[in-house]
């Protein structure tokens, strides 16, 4: 098999259609098939309905409407022979061995030899799936276990059997890695593989312990969440999110498959409360609620939580545990006296022990088990990283105190840690007690790895510059939420000088959750409160100048965002020679939301891009209207593909699906531009002037009349209209970049002096959302 150009997904349930959608996101055509329900008028109805559902899913399953067109909706009765067209068949049908095997026999009759066939089973061993199947089938068969939702969860567990063709498995793994952006964790053919086996153990344990110790669900989630680097949904919130009905189902199949001596059985108990909730339709967020619910009685929304003791809903209480707030790190929480510390240990002690027991059982690779929990359950630290943080001796000691068996790998630590850094390289302990250097897959480059051995070329409180080899440097934002401030601009200015003198290219990249959320509003609010208007204007100018220097620097600049790139974080992309964006990039000029206009060149660059777009009608207005529409509504692209449609990205900018490959791709792009590099020509713009501004204001007033835009939105829209239409320009004038920058700065300064804009700043700082004033 040479590559994967077309895929079939069989089973159009939530997982199947989600997998199909994500394969389409990679630009690969998909055949989505399901059965024909008896008497169905539309024989492709199940698949068609699933795609329609995916188009409405929140968070979005498709990265663009174009992707949806790549999914062909078919049925298994009329179109089975079309499986001949594909290179990979993903089976996502009911978790019943007989049903799966019956389907495999039908697949076997039509598929091309060498077509990969994989199951998304989460519980049935591969051994059982291929038993009695022809050799040729077993050779091409593997398990590919996706996590829900498939677009967003980065983990893919892969299980191969002794008869699986390693080259075929490698082809599927490579496709999943590069095209689907998944991190591959190879698992042994054991029940539940890694993430769910440990994750369900942890959930089951956490619910039982809360019940035993009388810990309210809110408190349980507060203890299990942030202190252990686990999402703030904790345990009960997580179960609500994935669905209560999933728990008994998965638990049952794990219990059936695991040997009696497995510790999983010891923590199991019947949960009549959960059974009752499911029966009453409280299946979690997809149902009427779960452990938490929103009670809409009496026209008010009240958040309620289940009392585990009585099984009745009660108003949800805000967790007020000062000791938990003060405790720094997981160890400190485990050390807390009383209910909080007891609960933390009752859950995490056995969970960490169970994880240690999985070495050699579910995987031989400690790092793989950690990766599975990081990416499958969004834990910040995997179990072995947690043990390193807590202290292996402490964990082993408390387990022994409790009379629990201490897993050999934990007992054998003897003061060592599971991970260490040796000669600038990260190493991990093997089951044999030796350290082994962690090797990244080919084409993966991480700044965190570089930092282990290197010192920054430049650094201040907000940013750093790194040498990432081959003459390429990397500018990293390092401030809180990667917010941009004067220090960022100062260091960027220095970086430009240094790169010009000594290096070939600059990549702007970081490994935060978000590339940058934009300018630091807290600092701006502070300056406004002391009426330091001059300082604010100086910072606006500094940003304009610095981004200008970046644009016209004599070397290529490639920005590589992932996560949010908003406001000033978007403007730096607009001033780069090229962007290599992670597919999950959320890019937008959101200044209008906080009562401002983009003033670090964002208006100017967007105008130039849209005026250069041949698809627009001629004349002075279409480009201006397009930018106005996008910026006045603070539109944020929900994927890198959507950012292309909005011209935040150019058509030729790159998209990387796998987060871990982003830096290497950006570096390669920068290096490819070095030879013969010439800075871009400055834009010159023809704008409509006051008539155009009036047309835009009239459009905004229409929105205000309909109650969609607020009074201050109109003020902001008026300033934006003035900037985008070129101020007092006549449509025979040609404006240079500086003229637009002046208009941006003037508009910004008028707005920042309004009460309503400052109210928006305050509300964003306090609540994360601008007030609608």
């Amino acid at each position, binding site marked *: 098999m040479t590559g994967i150009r077309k895929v079939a997904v069989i089973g159009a349930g939530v997982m199947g259609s989600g997998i199909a959608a994500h394969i389409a996101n990679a630009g690969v055509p998909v055949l989505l098939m399901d059965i024909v329900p008896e008497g169905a008028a539309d024989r492709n109805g199940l698949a068609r309905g699933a795609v329609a559902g995916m188009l409405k899913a929140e968070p979005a399953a498709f990265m663009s409407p174009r992707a949806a067109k790549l999914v062909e909706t078919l049925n298994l009765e009329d179109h089975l022979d079309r499986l001949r067209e594909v290179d990979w068949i993903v089976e996502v049908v009911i978790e019943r061995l007989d049903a799966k095997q019956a389907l495999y026999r039908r697949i076997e009759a039509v598929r091309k030899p060498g077509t990969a066939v994989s199951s998304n089973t989460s519980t049935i061993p591969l051994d059982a799936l291929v038993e009695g199947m022809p050799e040729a089938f077993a050779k091409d068969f593997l398990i590919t276990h996706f996590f829900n939702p498939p677009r967003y969860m980065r983990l893919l567990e892969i299980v191969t059997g002794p008869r699986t063709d390693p080259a075929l498995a490698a082809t599927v793994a490579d496709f999943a890695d590069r095209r689907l952006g998944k991190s591959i964790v190879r698992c042994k053919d054991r029940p539940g593989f890694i993430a769910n086996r440990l994750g369900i153990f942890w959930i089951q344990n956490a619910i039982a312990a809360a019940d035993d110790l009388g810990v309210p669900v809110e408190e349980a989630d507060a203890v299990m969440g942030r202190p252990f680097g686990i999402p703030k949904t904790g345990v009960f919130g997580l179960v609500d999110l994935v669905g209560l009905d999933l728990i008994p189902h998965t638990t049952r199949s794990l219990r059936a498959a695991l040997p009696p001596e497995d510790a999983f059985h010891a923590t199991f108990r019947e949960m009549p409360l959960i059974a009752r909730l499911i029966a009453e339709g409280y299946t979690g967020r997809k149902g009427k609620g779960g452990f938490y619910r929103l009670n809409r009685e009496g026209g008010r929304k009240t958040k309620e939580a289940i009392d585990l003791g009585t099984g009745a809903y009660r108003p949800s209480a805000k967790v007020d545990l000062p000791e938990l707030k003060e405790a720094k790190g997981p160890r400190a929480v485990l050390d807390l006296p009383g209910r909080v510390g007891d609960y933390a240990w009752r859950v995490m002690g056995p969970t960490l022990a169970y994880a240690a027991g999985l070495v050699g059982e579910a995987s031989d690779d400690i790092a793989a088990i950690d990766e599975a929990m990081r990416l499958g359950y969004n834990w910040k630290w995997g179990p072995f990283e947690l043990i390193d943080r807590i202290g292996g001796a402490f964990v082993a000691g408390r387990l022994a105190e409790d009379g629990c068996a201490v897993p050999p790998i934990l007992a054998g630590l003897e003061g060592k840690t599971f991970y260490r850094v040796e000669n600038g390289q990260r190493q991990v302990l093997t089951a044999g007690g030796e350290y082994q250097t962690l090797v990244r897959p080919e084409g993966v480059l991480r700044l965190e790895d570089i930092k282990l051995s290197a010192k920054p070329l430049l650094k201040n409180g907000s940013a750093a510059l790194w040498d990432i080899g081959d003459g390429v440097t990397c500018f990293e934002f390092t401030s809180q939420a990667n917010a941009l401030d004067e220090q960022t601009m100062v260091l960027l200015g220095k970086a430009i000088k240094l790169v010009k003198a000594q290096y070939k290219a600059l990549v702007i990249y970081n490994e935060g959750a978000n590339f940058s959320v934009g300018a630091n509003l807290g600092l701006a609010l502070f300056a406004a409160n002391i009426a330091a208007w001059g300082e604010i204007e100086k910072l606006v100018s500094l940003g304009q100048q610095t981004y200008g220097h970046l644009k016209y620097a004599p070397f290529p600049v490639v920005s590589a965002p992932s996560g949010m790139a908003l406001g000033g974080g978007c403007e730096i992309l607009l001033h780069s020679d090229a962007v290599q964006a992670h597919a999950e990039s959320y890019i937008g000029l959101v200044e209008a939301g906080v009562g401002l206009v983009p003033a670090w060149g964002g208006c100017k660059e967007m105008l130039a891009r849209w005026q250069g777009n041949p698809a627009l009608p001629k004349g002075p207005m279409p480009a201006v209207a397009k930018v106005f529409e996008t910026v006045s509504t603070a539109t944020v692209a929900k994927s890198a593909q959507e950012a292309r449609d909005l011209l935040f990205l150019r058509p030729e900018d790159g998209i990387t699906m796998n987060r871990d490959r982003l830096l290497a791709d950006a570096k390669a792009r920068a290096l490819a531009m070095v030879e013969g590099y010439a800075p871009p020509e400055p834009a010159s713009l023809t704008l409509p002037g006051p008539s*155009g501004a009036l047309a835009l204001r009239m459009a905004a007033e229409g929105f205000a*009349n309909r109650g969609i835009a607020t009074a201050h939105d109109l003020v902001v829209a008026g300033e934006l209209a003035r900037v985008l239409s070129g101020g007092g320009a006549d449509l025979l004038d040609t404006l240079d970049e500086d003229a637009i920058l002046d208009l941006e700065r003037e508009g910004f300064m008028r707005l920042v002096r309004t009460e309503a804009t400052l109210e928006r700043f305050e509300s964003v700082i306090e609540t994360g959302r601008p007030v609608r004033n």
Partner: protein
Amino acid sequence: MTHVVIAGYARSPFTPAKKGALARVRPDDLAAQVVRKLVAGAGLPSKDIEDLIVGCAFPEGEQGFNVARLIGMLADLDLTVGGVTVNRFCGSSMQSVHMAAGQIALGAGEAFLCAGVESMSRVPMMGFNPLPNPALHGKRPGAYMGMGDTAENVARRWEISRADQEAFAVGSHRKAARAQGEGRLAAEIVPIATKGGPVEADGCIRADASAEGLAALKPAFQRDGTVTAGTASPLTDGASAVLVCSEAYARRAGLTPLARIAAVAISGCEPEVMGIGPVAASRKAMARAGITADALSVVELNEAFASQALACIRDLGLREETVNIDGGAIALGHPLGATGARIVGKAAALLAREGGRFALATQCIGGGQGIATLLERV
């Protein structure tokens, strides 16, 4: 005085903009098919025609250049036939009829093709480059006021309730659906060839429109307003044409005139309540013909919005059963430039069909105007 008659009428199906079956048809192609069919149906040599006068509210893009001349060539009219494009916004193609009538009375031609076209899919309202004059806007903001806002103003000033507007809209759909069902629209419709096959039927009519359904809609223009998408005419693609000639020519060419033009009028009004424009224009036309509203057997009153249509019916004292007998623009659609020729042609055809002596076709015009054409039985 030379008598001027309407001697033929045809139109394309009217279909919803962007999502309708004509969205991907160029407006010049659309109008040319209608014109070609009207000429062929009348059976007259096209060299007899003096001029093709085409109304269009936003004559740019694919309906730009001098689209009338281009439509003439697309329809293979004799090259001696002239072509002129006329813009009076929604009144454009009724203006075409008035110009033809004037020319005929002047002795400057005997037969005219008066057409109208608008692809609201392909050329947006306000055009691609709206550049309003800031000084005028300062002096008279209503000059550029959105049509929805003017409809709200009329609803408020004339105290037209939301429920009344919705009952009117339901009535429009019901009449149009019945006319369609009974095949009373097919005769005027020219099937349009498209890449997806011929399009033969109107696409905006909703036979299932109900007061309850309309009551659930949100106000479309003002948060506290009464006008919704259901009580406004939809954005529409369409073309229409009428054959206007002297009565003597009609007789010579063996045509059967549908109606004679008795009087025409135009009248400006406050732009903020442009929807009331038909009142003054119709009164003028009736005065010129020496009749009053009770003499009208047929009225085609364009339904830009239910609120303005109701206000006009009330102020003019029209009898409800005479108004928009086969449904109006709320149900059929309102392709701006094409509506005037449609309602003149329709009024003439209805007069021939229903009997009676006088018919009125009238409509409101953005910017504050009304236009009216009074027809008399031949």
